C-alpha cells in the first residue's frame, strides 16, 4: 500500500477510491475548497496534483528531496509545498500558480523560499492565502508572505520540533503539536500565543473542534525511545482539552502505537485518528460529550 492515497467513507470505513502513482511514503495530502483537486507530497521526491473525483494524475512536480508538507490556498489557485533538507539539498518552500500552466509544465515555481537554519516540519496556508504558517524542526513558527517570500512574523514558543499545524474552521487561529509534549493555540494573523495544552508524551497531531471549544491531541512515546513499548507506557491515547481552560476532560484509548494524525469531522460529532499501528479509528461522541460543561 506504500505510496497510495485512499479515500474512505467515514460511516463504515468502506473504500471509495485511490490515487495511484507515488512510489514512496506519502507525507501530506490536501484538497482544495471545492474538492476539485487533490495535492499529495511524497518521499519519492515528487508532489502530484490529482483530479479529486476520477483519481487521474494531472501534474507531477519532481523535487530534489522528500515533500514534507503541501497545501492549496484559500481560493484553490495557488499551491505550496515544502521539501526536506536531505541528501545535500536544502529545505525549500515552492509556490505554483495553477492559473499559469507554464509554471507546472516547466516545473518553475513563481517563488522558492530557502529555509537554511531549521527545516520545515509542518506548514499551512494562512487566512485568505496571503501567507503560509510554517513550523520548524527547532520549534520556531514563521509566517512567510506568499507574495514576497519574506518572513512576516517569527515566534518561538516550542522547544522542539513542530509536528503538525491545523487551523480552526474559520482560520482565525491554529493549534500546533510539538515533540516538546505540548500543543499550543496561536492567532493566525499575529501568531500570538494563546493557550498551552500539556501532556507527558510527544504530541504528533492536534485538531480543533469546529463547533466546541475543544481540542484533541494525539501522540505517544516514540517506539525508538523506549525498549519495551507497552501500550501502557506509550500512552497512545487521544486526549481532549478545553480550549479556554487548558484542562483535560477526556481520553480515548485504542491505538497500540503512537497516533500520527487526528482530525475532527466537519460536523464536530465524530473524530478520527491514524496511528503508527496501521489503523485509522473513527469515534463518534456519546451524548455526554455534548452535554459536558466545566463549572465556571
Amino acid at each position: 500500500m506504500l505510496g497510495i492515497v485512499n479515500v474512505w467513507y467515514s460511516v463504515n470505513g468502506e473504500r471509495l477510491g485511490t490515487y495511484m502513482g507515488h512510489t514512496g511514503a506519502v507525507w501530506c495530502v490536501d484538497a482544495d475548497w471545492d474538492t476539485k483537486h487533490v495535492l499529495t507530497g511524497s518521499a519519492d521526491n515528487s508532489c502530484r496534483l490529482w483530479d479529486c473525483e476520477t483519481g487521474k494524475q494531472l501534474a507531477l512536480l519532481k523535487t530534489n528531496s522528500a515533500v514534507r508538507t503541501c497545501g492549496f490556498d484559500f481560493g484553490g489557485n495557488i499551491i505550496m509545498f515544502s521539501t526536506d533538507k536531505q541528501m545535500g539539498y536544502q529545505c525549500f518552500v515552492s509556490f505554483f500558480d495553477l492559473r499559469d500552466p507554464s509554471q507546472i509544465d516547466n516545473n518553475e515555481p513563481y517563488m522558492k523560499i530557502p529555509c537554511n537554519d531549521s527545516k520545515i516540519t509542518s506548514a499551512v496556508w494562512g487566512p485568505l492565502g496571503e501567507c503560509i504558517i510554517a513550523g520548524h524542526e527547532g520549534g520556531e513558527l514563521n509566517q512567510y508572505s506568499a507574495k514576497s517570500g519574506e518572513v512576516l512574523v517569527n515566534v518561538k514558543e516550542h522547544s522542539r520540533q513542530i509536528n503538525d499545524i491545523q487551523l480552526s474552521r474559520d482560520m482565525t487561529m491554529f493549534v500546533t503539536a510539538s515533540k516538546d509534549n505540548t500543543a499550543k493555540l496561536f492567532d493566525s494573523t499575529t501568531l500570538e500565543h494563546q493557550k498551552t495544552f500539556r501532556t507527558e508524551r510527544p504530541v504528533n497531531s492536534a485538531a480543533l473542534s469546529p463547533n466546541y471549544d475543544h481540542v484533541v491531541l494525539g501522540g505517544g512515546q516514540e517506539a525508538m525511545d523506549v525498549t519495551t513499548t507497552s501500550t501502557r507506557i506509550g500512552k497512545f491515547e487521544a486526549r481532549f482539552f478545553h480550549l479556554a481552560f487548558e484542562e483535560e476532560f477526556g481520553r480515548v484509548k485504542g491505538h497500540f502505537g503512537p497516533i500520527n494524525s487526528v482530525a475532527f469531522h466537519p460536523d464536530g460529532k465524530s473524530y478520527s485518528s491514524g496511528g503508527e499501528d496501521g489503523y485509522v479509528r473513527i469515534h463518534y461522541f456519546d451524548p455526554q460529550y455534548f452535554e459536558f460543561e466545566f463549572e465556571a
Partner: protein
Amino acid sequence: MQDAENVAAPEAAEQRAEPGQQQEQQPAAEPPPGEEPPRPGGPGAQEAASGEDAAAEVEAGPGPDVPAEPAAGREEAAGAAPGSSPPPPEESLAPVPAAGEQPGGAAEDGGADEPSFSDPEDFVDDVSEEELLGDILKDRPQEADGIDSVIVVDNVPQVGPDRLEKLKNVIHKIFSKFGKITNDFYPEEDGKTKGYIFLEYASPAHAVDAVKNADGYKLDKQHTFRVNLFTDFDKYMTISDEWDIPEKQPFKDLGNLRYWLEEAECRDQYSVIFESGDRTSIFWNDVKDPVSIEERARWTETYVRWSPKGTYLATFHQRGIALWGGEKFKQIQRFSHQGVQLIDFSPCERYLVTFSPLMDTQDDPQAIIIWDILTGQKKRGFHCESSAHWPIFKWSHDGKFFARMTLDTLSIYETPSMGLLDKKSLKISGIKDFSWSPGGNIIAFWVPEDKDIPARVTLMQLPTRQEIRVRNLFNVVDCKLHWQKNGDYLCVKVDRTPKGTQGVVTNFEIFRMREKQVPVDVVEMKETIIAFAWEPNGSKFAVLHGEAPRISVSFYHVKSNGKIELIKMFDKQQANTIFWSPQGQFVVLAGLRSMNGALAFVDTSDCTVMNIAEHYMASDVEWDPTGRYVVTSVSWWSHKVDNAYWLWTFQGRLLQKNNKDRFCQLLWRPRPPTLLSQEQIKQIKKDLKKYSKIFEQKDRLSQSKASKELVERRRTMMEDFRKYRKMAQELYMEQKNERLELRGGVDTDELDSNVDDWEEETIEFFVTEEIIPLGNQE
C-alpha cells in the same frame, strides 16, 4: 529513612548512590573546570604561554642575534606546551599545563627545517629544578640512615647476665612475628639491663607493624610493653613548649536554623532534584499545590542529603560538600574533599563523614574524613579500601561513639577526641556485621560458626565493653540485624540449614532489650523472606515472604509477656518493600520497579487494607516525617519516562501528581525529635476530637476557597478567551467580501451555507458500532 530497616535496603542504597558512582567513572586526572592547572614557572615559559605572536617571542629571546631569537622563544614554548614538538625528556615530567592552550610554537611556523632544540650559547637557565618538578622531587629516593626501622620497647624486665639469653629469646619470639630483626641492643647498667631495648627491623614497614600490634603487650603482670618508633622520640622531643592561644573567631549569626518548624500550618519541606540533576528546588508541602521556597540551577552536582534533624542541606560537588540552611538557604559551611562521593552525618549533627576515592595516600589518610560541622575543621582522616558497605563508620545514637569493622576487628572511636576508645580495638575473629542500638550505647554483632564453636550474636554495652547477652546459633548461613527505632527490640534474621533438612530455613530471633537479661524469642518462618521491617515506635513488625507471584505479608505483635503473635496475614501481595509510617501503625507495601509500582496502604491497628493503588513504574516511596503524607516517585535515575512524584495521604488517597521533567529525587526534610513529653502526647491524643473539629473546619474553609478560586480562575480565563474570539471574529467578518471574491462568490463560512446546491444521494452501509465511554481517565 524508612528502608534502613528493610531487607531490600542495600538495593535502595545503591540506587541513591548511583550519581556518586557515575562520578567515579570520570577520569581522575581531569582537572575540575575553572581550576587553574599548575604551570611551570620561569619568565620564558610564561611569555611563551601568554603570547603567540612574534613580538612576544622576540622579547623572550635574550640574545642580540635576531635570526636566533625566534628559535629560542620557540624552544621554551616547546617546554611549556607539550604537543607542539617533542620536549626534552626531563621537562616532560613537568606538570602538564592546559593542553591545547598553546598550539603555536614550532609547528606553526616550522615545516621548513627540523627545529633546533639546543639552547643558544648564551642562554641562562634560571628555572630551578624545584620550580619545575617540585612535586616529583619530593618523592625522590633519599639516603636512609635506617633509624626508621628501629623501635624502642619499654617495660622490659630488668635482668642480669645469667638470664639475658632467655630474655633475648622471649623478645625475639614476640617481635620477629612482625619481620626480620636485623639488630638488637640491650643497654646495661650495674650488670643489669636497663628495662628498655632497641630493635632494628629489615624495613620500616615491619617497625610500624610492631608498634601497632605489640604496644600494650602484656608479658606478665608487672610488665606491659610500650613500643614506639625511634623516630617518634625525635619528633615529639622537638615540639615547642610554647602554646599560642588560638585567635578568637567572630561569632557569625546564622539566624534561626530551625525556622521551618515554626510554620503556622505545620507544613513540611522537601527537596526535589529534576532536569536530570540540573535543578534543585525546595518546596513546602501543601495539600493543594507545592509552594516553592527556593530553586537553583546546578545547586548540586550529583544529589543532596538532609542532615538527620533537618538543620542542613548537603550538596555534592567535585571539590567537596557544602551545607546550606536558614530561611534563605545560605551556605553555612564547606568541606573540601576532592572527588567526594558519599557522606554520612552523625545523629547529633555535630560531625560529617565524607568519602572520596581520589585523595588517599599512604602517609596521609584522606579516603574518609570526619569533620566538625560547626567549625568546619577536619577532625580526622582514615584509610578506606572500599566504600561498598557505606556507611563504613556507624554512629551511636547520641553521636558519642562511632565504630568500624575490619577483618577480625571492631574499632570503636570516641568523640570529640576521635581516638580509639580505650586506645584499643576489639579483636573479634570472624566478625561479619555489627550495628548500634538506636536507643542506647549497645552494639550488636555476630560471628559465624568456626569448626566446633557455634555462631553467636553478642550484645555489648559501651563504653564498658560488657557483654550483656550472647546467643549461640547453629548451622547458620547468614544473619541480619534489625533494630526497632527506639532500641526496644532487636530482631536477628537467621538463615540456617538445619541438619536433616534441605534448603534454608529462616528464624527471627527477637531480643527484648528493655527486660532483664534480654530474653529472646524465636519465630520460625517457612518461606523465603523478601523484606522485614519493625514498626517505628511500636512493637509490631511486618514481613514479606514467599516467592513471586505468591507473596504474602504477615504482621506480628510482640506482646508485653514476650509472646509473639501473628496478627494477620494477607496473601497474593504485589510487594517487595515495606514502608512504615514514621509514627507507626500505618504501612505502605510497595512493589517497586519490576513489580510496576503496586501500592497497598494498610492500617495495622485493625489490619485493614485502606486502599490498593498503583504508581506505574514507581522507584521510591518516602513518608513525610510526621506520617501524614507519603510520596511515591518514578526517578529518572531508574526509569527514563514519566518521571514524576505523587503525593498521597497516609490512607492512600491521591492528592497530587507532580510531573517534573527528568525528576530524580525527592527527600523530605527531617524533623528533630519532639519536645513534648509522653504525658503531653497522651493528652493530645485524648483531646483529638476537640482538635479535629478545628482542623475540619479549617479544611472546609480552604477547600471551598480553593474551589472558589478555581471557578474564579476559569471564569477569567473564559472571559479573556471570549474577548480574544470576539476580536478574531470581527476581523473574520470584515474579510467576508475578500473570501467571497476568492471563492468565486460561493459562501463557505457555514457548513449549510449552500443548502440549495446540495444533491441528495442515498448510499447503503453496513455499520457495526462499538461504544467507548469517554472521560474514563486512568
